[in-house]
């Protein structure tokens, strides 16, 4: 944490390198204890997800080549390996968090579950950002009829309770990773569009936008080169919160049985499967998966919160 503690210089160097920017952001985060706590929580899960097995060093595995056998690293076991006769066990030295009803190691399942969620959530947010951001820019910049129509449609989408959107989409298209991403994208894009639109409405009144217009620049140049970069601060913070929501939503879908089909070690599905055994004296499945998802979402929220507070202080 030595780097973090270093205070940011007030006058930044003339040509900030990428590394310089990274350290500047870290230094900003370092000021806030809240953000550090968030960073630790999120960092923990990122490390777990990355080094659960040796997948990270075998490109074949990245493409989802299920034939290749991975060597477990941090996960210790494969999430699908069933240990005969050891089902529904509590924590032990062999199985740190215990086993589920099929005798699978819970630690391995939780760790692999983090990988699923940490891949799906950012992807869905990125897609939502691309779609919502573009729509918001268009609505905000052009205004008039385009804005009116776009915002009506987006309002209608937003009036729709998100959970119903997920339900209907998943019910219509069936549970799969792609559909989960699709559902979260559709549910998230209108909110992003609204945010970007309001930022655009503000930024487009700035003189530098007028200056670009008087140079006869194309609307697309103005939207993406002049306006968008200046909206990035709030968008990044919003995106971070949205990754949290997405994790939340993926978990919820899993819990409702609308997430990834079994035997995928999706956290929500683990809770859903495990809650039947709570009353039977085996709360471990539900407990660990709940703790995991709560810690990850809380971490993301803390990070976003700390960051926005620090950014706000210097604005």
């Amino acid at each position, binding site marked *: 944490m030595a780097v973090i503690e270093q205070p940011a210089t007030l006058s930044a160097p003339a040509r900030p390198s990428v590394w310089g920017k990274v350290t500047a952001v870290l230094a900003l985060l370092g000021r806030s204890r809240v953000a550090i706590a968030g960073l630790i929580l999120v960092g923990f899960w990122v490390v777990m997800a990355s080094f659960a097995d040796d997948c990270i060093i075998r490109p074949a595995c990245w493409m989802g080549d299920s034939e290749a056998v991975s060597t477990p690293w941090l996960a210790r076991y494969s999430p699908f390996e069933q240990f005969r006769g050891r089902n529904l066990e509590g924590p032990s030295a062999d199985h740190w968090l215990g086993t589920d009803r099929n005798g699978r190691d819970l630690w391995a399942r939780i760790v692999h579950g983090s990988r699923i969620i940490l891949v799906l959530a950012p992807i869905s947010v990125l897609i939502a950002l691309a779609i919502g951001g573009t729509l918001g820019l268009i609505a905000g910049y052009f205004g008039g009829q385009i804005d009116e129509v776009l915002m009506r449609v987006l309002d209608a989408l937003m009036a729709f309770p998100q959970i119903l959107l997920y339900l209907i989409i998943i019910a219509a298209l069936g549970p799969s990773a792609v559909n989960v991403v699709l559902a979260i994208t559709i549910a998230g894009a209108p909110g992003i569009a609204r945010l970007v639109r309001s930022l655009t409405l503000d930024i487009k009144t700035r003189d530098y936008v007028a*200056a670009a217009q008087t140079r006869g620049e194309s609307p697309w140049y103005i939207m993406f080169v002049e306006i968008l970069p200046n909206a990035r601060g709030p968008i990044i913070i919003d995106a971070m919160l949205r990754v949290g929501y997405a994790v939340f939503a993926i978990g919820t879908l899993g819990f409702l049985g609308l997430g990834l089909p079994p035997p995928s070690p999706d956290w929500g599905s683990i809770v859903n499967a495990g809650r039947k055994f709570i009353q039977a004296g085996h709360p471990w499945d539900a407990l660990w998966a709940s703790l995991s998802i709560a810690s990850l979402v809380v971490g993301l929220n803390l990070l976003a919160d700390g960051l926005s507070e620090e950014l706000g202080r210097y604005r």
Partner: protein
Amino acid sequence: MTTSPGKMNEPVVRVQNLAIAYETHSGDVNAVRDVSFEIHRGETLGLVGESGCGKSTVAYGLVNYLGRNGKIVHGEIIFQGESLVGRSPEELRKLRGDQIAMVYQDPMTSLNPVLRVGQQMTEVLTVHRGISVDEARTRCVEMLRRVYMPDPEAVMGRYPHQISGGQQQRVVIAMALLNNPALLVMDEPTTALDVTVEAAVLDLVADLRRDFDTAILFISHNLGVVARVSSRVGVMYAGEMVEQAPVREIFAHPRHPYTQGLMRCVPRLGADKAGSVLYPIRGRVPAPDRLPPGCVFEPRCDYATEHCRQERPALRQISNRHMVSCLRAEHIRASEWQPTEDIIPLMPAADAAEPETILNVDGLRTYYKQSSGSPLDLIGLGKKRYVRAVDGVSFTIPQGKTLGVVGESGCGKSTLIKTLIGLEPMTGGAAQFLGFDLEKKASKRDMGLIRELQMVFQNPDATMNPSYSVGTQIERPLRRFKVVPPNQIHAEVVRLLRAVKLDEHYYDRRPRQLSGGEKQRVGIARAFAGRPDLVLCDEPVSALDVSVQAAVLNLLLEIQREQGTTMIFIAHDLSVVRFFSDYVAVMYLGQIVEIGPAEAIYAPPYHPYTESLLAAVPIPDPSVAQQHIRLEGSVPSPLNPPSGCRFHTRCPRRQLLPDGGAICEREVPPMQDAGDGHQIHCHIPLETLHDLEPVVQIAA
């Protein structure tokens, strides 16, 4: 017979060696150091200085409202014989609003939007006096009447957003005076107001000071405003009081080099670019955490010696009631000052023989559609209403000349140039520029036309895109207009930076690392990158401090002289427009009421509106006599402009016409030619206008 100032000679408030600091991440920063002054009953102390000099900090320190991270670290504030420092919050609360009151810069945000004016006013009385609401209401109405509020009973029942800015400020002032405070602190009370409203508020302040015997601390960055209301003036620089003297004394014989510098920065009303020069102060105000070790003004001072670098001067008395903190005050004379070499006085541009017309605007109209707010609008059936922002404006500009445009806010001057440059669609009329028609919006115009027509913007903080470096932003027009071959772009950017007096290190700077003046220079460099023929300047200096304003004006003049650029220059400051322009157009409610050579506009005959504007301008010279002409009411809505002459609702000269100017309401005024291209749109005959006394007696 003089009113007796009373037998108590003790000041209402005496500030001694006040120092205020703010806690920051990097330790305490002293925003104000060693400030001393006193204010007596019925006296106004004007506090001037550029932004960041600690004026407002002093004001809020006086009422002990410094926020969570501000604190008084040293010194005393003696109010009515007793110290305010270290009083309990409850004692302070009882003083605030009762014995000490405050008026703020922005009246709109200073009033609570969800409470009626009456509620906000009466509570001052009910809380401090404990009287009934009914009684308080009567008193509030009386006080509103006292501050010349039209229809005070009705105003009591309104919400702040339902009354105009000038009326809001009157409400704030009335609220401050309700408890007859001994001390009134006014923090830039007129900065957010138009010049005509400002004049009325300043009159009111002077009135009230006389009637209530209140001690007033009046803070303003505007020398003219301070000159008008103050009895004494204190000049602040970098958190210190550098000079203090009676108002006439300080304007006649400024002793501190900073005060002298400030006065050289502002154009006198009536001065023009041919006959006078503005001398900016070099450098900028140091940040409070990086002060020079000696005199705070030393790095910018022309008289500085080694001694100044080492010793910090204290405020000392140099003559009866004149105090200055300069080690060399006795040795410097304002009259003997010579500009240093880096500030080169500008030579008047050589007058070419009859230049050709470059821009010809004829009957230009720009309307904005506004929905009438009826439910029918929902389905597109509502009656359309139009805001007539610009409504039939015609003028021409010869090559290489500058047309200044003045008028109150909302008169359409900004819309006019936005229409010309193609940011707003033209509703009607025609504009010809170098043979191009300016009908299309900028995005649909020919690249050749775009290149020849550029704009300089008002707000230095918004003129540059914060995401890109200075170099990148100047490069863009160079690439787009293909001004130079791609391999020479970098060299050209450096040349442009030099032209606006910035060195090439600025190439990689980010906008946030630049001061306001520097940003404005980059904005100018960007506008001039394509070597345009016509540059439209939308209040380019109004957001800048006076010393920077002078530098930017000089820069624009210099570039114009080198490149022979034609300009349209908008400003609300009549002195600046007079200084900068060859021709001046005065706009009111979307129309030009008077246009002509600059010198002709500022002397009779003038349009009654021009006359009122001139009467309202605060002049930084208490010895100049100005006629007292004040406009009634506020500018009518451009949605529904008055019939006939649009100015007839507020015209102070209507009675010069037979039957009180009935014709003004009926007929559009004729254009009267006063010769030399000077046109006045008014029903009053030229001869009558000619015989009017000049508003401002300008000393030769």
